[in-house]
């Protein structure tokens, strides 16, 4: 038998830092003949200045386009010949790249990541071509009314902090950004002292360290990255927006300013979210693709079981700086949004006033304990978790998460609910569908 879940902390990886500042995390996992390599950069859409929104994500696209030592037409095939998969994503705090393949591809994976860090080309023709790909990606997102509402709600909830703009960027910026903007941004942030390299899998740590030194040791440290220092001022009153647009279904979203991952309120709020909408776990790469267990969650019972909504979801992300706790509701046909909203707010007011019960605390902890086990079912997922937390806070936030969750008390949850769910701190967004064919589109804040 494997170790019982209750006694299994998240394993701590071997950690060290190269002379050039590159952080390295290695964890040997011999469950399959695989290795997963992730290279994380502390750069995301929060680092973007006005006029350059979307530059982090566009750079990520450019960093798949060939390097000084990997010709453009030979990018594909390097990992595929080992049966591997590769990918990447950009979000508000981070940009990351991964390869997972058979263990004998480890050296190739490290080579690719070292090239990506130091030697990408940003050929002007490629920049131009990718502009169209990214605008196509943006338009694909706009096809989804719920995603559009999320984007607009976030932009309304933040007045000052760069978390307010979407990771993909605003269309006018994508239309005008230049190759020099992109390349300058790349050179500024893609330096070893702004990165974390993670390896998890069937590898020998000392051998892997030797190969890391070989591929990355010669890359010069960059100038220390200067950051935007905007702090979002306290929200002093409820904000609202309504999108009226042709569509078929009505959506409601409520966003509250939420604590950062290192804040004492974070894990209590994670418990609170589990009570309200079901536990999601902490792996944004995998677990958010599986709906949470939520049939007995308060908001599910209040909205879905009563036929007012076909879906309700909560989202509390571990982030470097205070972001949002959002609850989204898909209204069933014929349910006025104000009815769904009043039921939702009533439930939130109740939990803010009365807290949760001991039974709910026990169930939420059991759910989270199970999700943490399920979240670590592959070398790719484990490596994601290590790198993600190291990039937004520290890897210890992840390795100590099971213990921290186990310690959360009823009083802590009540305090977190009182702090986070203040009416004056919320932003309420509606997507009100207009009949298809009416040719109207309107946004009100």
């Amino acid at each position, binding site marked *: *038998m*494997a*170790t*019982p*879940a209750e006694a*299994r902390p998240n394993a701590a990886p071997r950690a060290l830092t190269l002379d050039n500042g590159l952080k390295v995390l290695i964890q040997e996992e011999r469950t*399959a003949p695989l290795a997963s390599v992730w290279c994380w950069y502390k750069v995301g859409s929060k680092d973007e200045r006005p006029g350059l929104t979307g530059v982090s994500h566009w750079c990520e696209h450019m960093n*798949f386009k060939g390097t000084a030592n990997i010709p453009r037409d030979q990018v*594909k*095939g390097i990992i*595929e*010949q080992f*049966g591997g*998969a590769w*990918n*990447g*994503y*950009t*979000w508000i705090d981070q940009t990351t790249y991964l390869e997972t*393949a058979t263990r004998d591809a480890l050296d190739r994976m490290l080579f690719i990541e070292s090239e990506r860090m130091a030697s990408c080309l940003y050929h002007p023709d490629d920049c131009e*071509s*990718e*502009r169209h790909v990214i*605008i*196509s990606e943006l*338009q*694909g997102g*706009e*096809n989804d009314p719920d*995603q559009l509402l*999320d984007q607009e709600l976030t932009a309304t909830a933040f007045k000052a902090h760069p978390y307010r703009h979407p*990771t993909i960027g605003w269309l006018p910026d994508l239309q005008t950004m230049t190759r020099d903007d992109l390349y300058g941004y790349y050179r500024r942030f893609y330096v070893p002292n702004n990165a974390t390299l993670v390896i998890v899998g069937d590898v020998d740590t000392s051998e892997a360290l030797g190969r890391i030194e070989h591929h990355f040791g010669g890359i010069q440290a960059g100038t220390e990255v200067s950051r935007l220092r905007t702090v979002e001022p306290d929200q002093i009153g409820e904000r609202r927006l309504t999108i009226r*647009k*042709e569509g*078929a*279904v009505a959506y409601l979203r409520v966003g509250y300013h939420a604590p950062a991952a290192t804040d004492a309120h974070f894990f209590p709020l994670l418990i609170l979210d589990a009570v309200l909408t079901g536990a999601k776990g902490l792996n944004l790469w995998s677990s*958010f693709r*599986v709906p949470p*267990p939520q*049939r*007995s*969650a308060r908001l599910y019972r209040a909205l879905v079981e009563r*036929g007012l909504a*076909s879906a309700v979801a909560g*989202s509390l992300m571990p982030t470097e700086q205070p972001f949002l706790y959002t609850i989204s509701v898909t209204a*069933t*046909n014929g349910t006025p949004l104000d009815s769904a909203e009043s039921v939702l707010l009533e439930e939130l007011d109740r939990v803010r006033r009365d807290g949760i019960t001991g039974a709910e605390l026990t*169930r939420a902890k*059991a*759910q*989270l*304990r*199970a*999700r943490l*086990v*399920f979240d*670590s*079912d*592959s070398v790719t997922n484990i490596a994601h978790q290590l790198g993600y937390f190291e990039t937004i806070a520290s890897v210890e936030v992840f390795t100590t998460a099971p213990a921290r969750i186990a310690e959360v008390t009823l009083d802590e949850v009540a305090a977190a609910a009182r702090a986070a769910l203040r009416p004056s701190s919320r932003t309420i967004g509606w997507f009100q569908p207009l009949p298809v064919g009416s040719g109207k*589109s309107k946004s009100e804040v």
Partner: protein
Amino acid sequence: MPPGAQPSDFVLQTSPARSGLDPARTVLETGVVVLAKPTRTTPAVAINLAMRAGSIADPPGLPGITWLLSRVIDRGTATRSAADIADELDSRGITLTITVTRHLLSLVCTCLADDFEAVLALLGEMLMSPSLPEREIATRKGEVITAIRQDEDNPAVRATETLMALLYPDGHPYGRRTKGSIEIVESLTREQLLRLHADRFAPTGLTAVVVGDAEPARVKEVAARVFGGWRKPAPSSIALPPVRPATARRRVVIPMMNKAQADIAYGFTTITRRDSAYYACWLMNVALGQYAIGGRLGDSIRERQGMAYYVSSSLDANVAEGPLLVRAGVSPLNVDRAVASIDEEVARLVRDGLSEKELDESRRYLIGSIPRALETNAAIASFLQTEEFFGLGLDYDARLPDLLGAVTLDDVNAAARRALDPDRAAIVIAGPYADV
């Protein structure tokens, strides 16, 4: 990935098998097939129960009834209320996913190893004796109707569903919308759902797969306890109408002027899963629209022309001749150019075939991806269901590299000529686009 995060590229669709899965297979006296594979990755167990009662079992005039049944089957049993079930699942942190494909209705979940026995008993009861309460039916109908309305507002779904109707016309079960229509869902009754369950759910149609931290002997013992008393005759078999290959090119435009991007679905009917050309067709599809960022299609439409964020092809060889679908999301200004590029790549593949290098790359990729594709308990369980459903044999994962290795360039090029032809393509465009 977090909502709002921007993925860069598709995770490559990978395929079967690592050598030596060697699952333990048992057929219970009642006809239930039990497959067990122990692993030690995590103290968890993946359970995958597949009943041969997919949407092809929808009776005439009732498309969507199997889908509604799948939404209600887990909301009450002979001995448990919906609230009891909610408590049992939620207290263990379990998300139960119920899927409906053309041929299977599946209950899938992962639980902690300590909970395996109780959870298998719970899932078994759902399959054998659902109570289908009226109140639950009414609530789930509302959810399904909302989901249908969301689909109708989604260009990608509209394009794909309309393409399937073009490829499989005249009421063929592969061409029907799995969720049905709002009108039919509203009209469905509890009696109809109970009748469907009584007619189509039987032990001979069930395969129970358990992968994870549980010994096969225990899995067999628990499965025998759960399903041992379930005795029913085998349901009548459902004959699928023949699939007639297209004789002409067809093109449908669904204007959705409230959208920003157009979705293109382009496809053909191809072969059955048991066709000897399957492995050649699979390799051909990898080269056409899978390898790296979407194979040849991705090279042309995304990488060289910068026209689309996504473009890829998929092959779904099935009991009947399944579809090969090309899908792309493009700016409305680029629709015609994107369709022309798909035509061009398809025609080039038929005319010139693949190169030895492309075949070798695709083959190495598929064989090399086997350990990764079978890393997690859930992935192994899904693979074993496919293995059982198509009768591929318990050693299929071990034989797979040889099966792929035996395919020649002539085989692949013959498969391309057989399956693909721009003059017989079905094409659907949904989005802010209209024919002039």
